[in-house]
């Protein structure tokens, strides 16, 4: 019997910290696809063209900075096909990875359909991969040792320094990217320089009691065969401020809002049965689905939890890979009505995936731009990259330097055929970059101290793991951008993430 302290019932309960959603800055594009753009008739090549024309300037800028002082005085060749042999120069273009393991639509068509297709390979990379760079004029293959250590995936806009080899390839000496996009809140950062300095110096910078935090969770995975309802229940109680002692209640009260980055529901099991009698007795099915294979239970359960939380704090929910939502990015917001009562709360928001979010603190003059997505771009990029040497966190960091959220779209990551702009380009660096659907909680503060443009940029990266598997719930301090994790689990209980045993060292 543990010594149970008598818990005090304070007359002045802690009050919840509040943050306000502000209008998004001009640099953050919207991912809503309105009805007039909801067309698939356009070719995907437009996106590559838009991307190249949008980023070429930035890449060239950084290339000039990086390479003009080099001996040999490399010159810029505007078109990749005009490269002169054995003359040091640099070119800018879109990377294309020719990978034998990458799914190929031609192979798909040629395949014998009487034989079930082989399962898609978990990774595309192999030793036979060829890296090419292309622009409007054509493409040229890149070779060289330098390339192997570099992180490149299809769709990047890069600049490469080198010279053409006798066999018509391009020997790479150096690579450069667009670099971090400007940050809109840079000025604010200057003001709070002091705190930022402390923050960067030691991550244990004092969090003030007045600081607002935001909670981020991913992968609730409701409706999975092995449910994690107990864990979710603990999370809900924590958020409502009912769980634990005084300490817990105070820290819970500082959470101003909850952001759910995808995978709230487990993927539906495809039994094949539903499709078999799809043509059959349609009248016997009440809402157009087969009651024997389909259950609305997961949505009801999720709605219940959302309502419990939604009563105490605002919620933002993003669809994810496993959610009942479209596959192509950007995933459009869930229809509110599917969540029942919680949808009547104006503070419950269904977001697109990915999405930008601007939050301002109510206690201090801070506004933070958040960029959130549910992990698909990162998961897809990792099919291209051998690991080690590449890690998830560094790849996410790279996307900032590439100024592109999802370079592998539309090649292997499905996305909407945009015709006028590529919204996946980072026009500004967010303060917080949160990626859901990962395996581990990881975080890093990316800084760009090269005060070339007189502004320092920094961005907090947070990879949020699936809650059902890890029980981890991430908390981020909006002022200091510090990250804290809370893990909910049951000791020696089934239905917890540590089914197999305890997670001791």
């Amino acid at each position: 019997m543990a010594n149970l302290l008598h818990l005090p019932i304070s007359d002045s309960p802690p009050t919840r910290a509040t943050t306000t959603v502000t209008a998004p800055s001009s640099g953050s594009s919207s991912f809503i696809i309105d009805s007039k753009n909801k067309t698939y008739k356009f070719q995907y090549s437009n996106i590559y063209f838009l991307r190249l024309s949008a980023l070429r300037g930035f890449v060239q800028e950084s290339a000039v900075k990086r390479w003009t002082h080099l001996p040999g005085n490399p010159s810029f060749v505007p078109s990749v096909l005009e490269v002169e042999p054995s003359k040091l120069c640099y070119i800018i273009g879109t990377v294309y990875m020719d990978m034998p393991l990458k799914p190929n639509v031609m192979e798909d068509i040629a395949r014998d359909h009487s034989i079930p297709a082989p399962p898609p390979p978990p990774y595309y990379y192999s030793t036979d991969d060829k890296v090419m760079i292309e622009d409007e004029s054509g493409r040229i293959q890149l070779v060289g040792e330098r390339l192997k250590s570099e992180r490149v995936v299809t769709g990047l806009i890069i600049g490469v320094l080198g010279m053409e080899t006798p066999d018509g390839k391009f020997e790479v000496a150096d690579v450069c990217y667009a670099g971090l996009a400007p940050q809109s809140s840079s000025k604010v950062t200057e003001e709070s320089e002091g705190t930022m300095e402390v923050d960067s110096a030691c991550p244990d910078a004092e969090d003030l009691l007045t600081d607002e935090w935001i909670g981020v969770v991913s992968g609730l995975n409701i409706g999975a065969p092995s449910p994690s309802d107990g864990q979710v229940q603990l999370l809900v109680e924590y958020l409502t401020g009912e769980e634990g002692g005084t300490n817990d209640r105070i820290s819970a009260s500082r959470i101003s809002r909850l952001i759910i980055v995808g995978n709230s529901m487990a993927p539906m099991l495809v039994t094949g049965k539903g499709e078999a009698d799809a043509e059959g007795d349609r009248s016997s099915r009440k809402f157009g689905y087969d009651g024997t294979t389909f259950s609305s239970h997961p949505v009801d359960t999720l709605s219940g939890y959302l309502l419990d939380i939604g009563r105490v704090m605002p919620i933002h929910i993003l669809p994810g890979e496993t959610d009942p939502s479209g596959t192509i990015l950007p995933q459009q917001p869930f229809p509110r009505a599917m969540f029942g009562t919680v949808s009547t709360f104006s503070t419950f928001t269904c977001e697109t995936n990915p999405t930008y979010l601007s939050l301002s603190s109510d206690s201090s003059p801070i506004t933070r731009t958040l960029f959130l997505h549910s992990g698909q771009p990162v998961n897809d990029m990792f099919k291209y990259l051998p690991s080690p040497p590449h890690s998830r966190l560094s790849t996410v960091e790279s996307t900032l330097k590439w100024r592109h959220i999802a370079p592998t779209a539309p090649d292997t990551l499905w996305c909407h055929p945009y015709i006028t702009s590529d919204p996946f380009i980072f026009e500004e660096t967010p303060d917080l970059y949160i990626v859901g659907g990962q395996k581990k909680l990881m975080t890093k503060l990316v800084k760009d101290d090269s005060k070339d443009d007189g502004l320092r940029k920094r961005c907090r990266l947070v990879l949020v793991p699936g809650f059902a598997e890890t029980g981890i719930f991430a908390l981020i301090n909006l002022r200091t951008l510090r990250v804290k994790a809370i893990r909910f689990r049951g000791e020696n209980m089934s239905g917890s993430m540590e089914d197999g045993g305890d997670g001791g060292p």
Partner: protein
Amino acid sequence: MGSESIEDFLTKQILIEGNIITYRSLSRQLSLHVNAAKNALATFYMKARRDGESKVAATYLISGEVQLDASGSGAMDMDVDMENNRENAEYEVDDAEEVQLVEVVLVGEKDLQYTTSKFSTIYSTHIYSLSPAPIRDMGLICGPNEIVRDIDNKKGTEMEAIVGKIVGNVQQGKGKPYVPPPPPPAVATSASGSKSSVPVPSENRTTKKNTLTSEKSKASDFFAKAKPRETKNIKEAIKKETKKNGTEEYSVELNAKSAGASKDSKHEEKPSKRKQESPSESLHEKIDLATSSKAKGKVLANKTGGAKRKLPDSESEDEGEKFPVTVKKNVIVSDEEVDQPILRANRAKGKDKGKQVFKEENDDVLAMMEVDDDQVIRASRCRKASPEPSELEDVEMQDDLDDKPTTKTRKKPKAKKIVPIGKNGVKKKRVMKSKMTLDAKGYMVTEDYSSYESVDEEEPDIEPAKDKGNQGKGASEKTGNSGKTSKTKTTTSESKGSRAKKEEDKKRETDTLTKSKSARGSGASGPGQKKIASFFAKPKGNK
């Protein structure tokens, strides 16, 4: 809330009913602060232990900080698969910052000591729940959640303050009352289980749930009480009502309502008193009114009934007069309700009929199969739905589609036709003309086309004046007109042709094609063949 009653409650719930009681469900059911509930559970458990009660098992919740190496990477290494190495590499901790980790662990008494030792700092330990047996499955703690939600849904904001929820920055868009969605099957079972254990709140809930329908059930309930004193007429009405509202739902409602009403002695008494007060004269009134209002119109009665029905419950004096009226209205209302199933049944019958007709049709078709395959198929389509075949046939016929539904009703629409007015302000009329040309191969091609021509004022004036009933006349007049000039002749013949074309489709099926041709031939000059050709060419002319 005294500690005595809390203890009683816990004893009953855990030891007798065998429920899991969490601090949350206790706080909701007894309107305690969550911390008070946690303390109460601890007190109860301590006492139970002292008394040697072995049937109570406690589950604790420990929160506190954990050393990083004991958590982060260690817990993740359990996936034993080929990708493990890669995965570790993907989540290399090299450049990542360390994160402070707070753990919230649910633990049974058995593992309490062990778990406690793993924390570096413990924020708090409290009893999460008490149960008759140790909890082995975390999912079980969600069970009492149903009760918590029910009470939260019902009492909402007031409860938040009592139990100590930390609420902020939340806006409920509309002031909609919470209507609990029909629980999914699996949840329903657990909910019912908890209901039985906690009778008071759950019953309240059911009554609340039925607020929408309670109005109705109240009224019917009302009757049930009035029954013995009513005359046969009313009794019959009630019988009808109860019989016809034989759906399960309704009866369940009735039961629930009657149970609730029996509790409410006030409600019960009122109607009976009223009954005694209101003498038999009111009954006559009732019947009279019933018949009259029936004649008036049910909809009206229904509408007003909703508002007036409430009165008998709240008012006491005027009820003697108002009451019978409401009863009468209720009778009508129930009648109306009764009507619906009948209507539905009728509709269903109608459907069946339709099916039968269809079957007969099919038989016909089968019989005709022996004659000619193509024709039969077409025919059946034609009969079923007229727009379909045209859609299926040719795109060029699209133009006719607009006319078809109207021509279906024969000639009527001709009179209704909108008369366009030309630039010169003279009304225009669509006129069919035919053109003969030689095509490349030297064949003579007759092309019919329509165009608008200005016409005299009188002619169109006559047409709108024609009544629907005078269609025949109009038609005859037209044919008369057609005799005047060759131009108009072609017009009518052509328009007839288009109309006849539909008939023709029909007639083909019955093999009276030639007949119809001859019939048409009587009206027009050209032979049938020409007409068919001209018909197909017509849309071209339109363009």
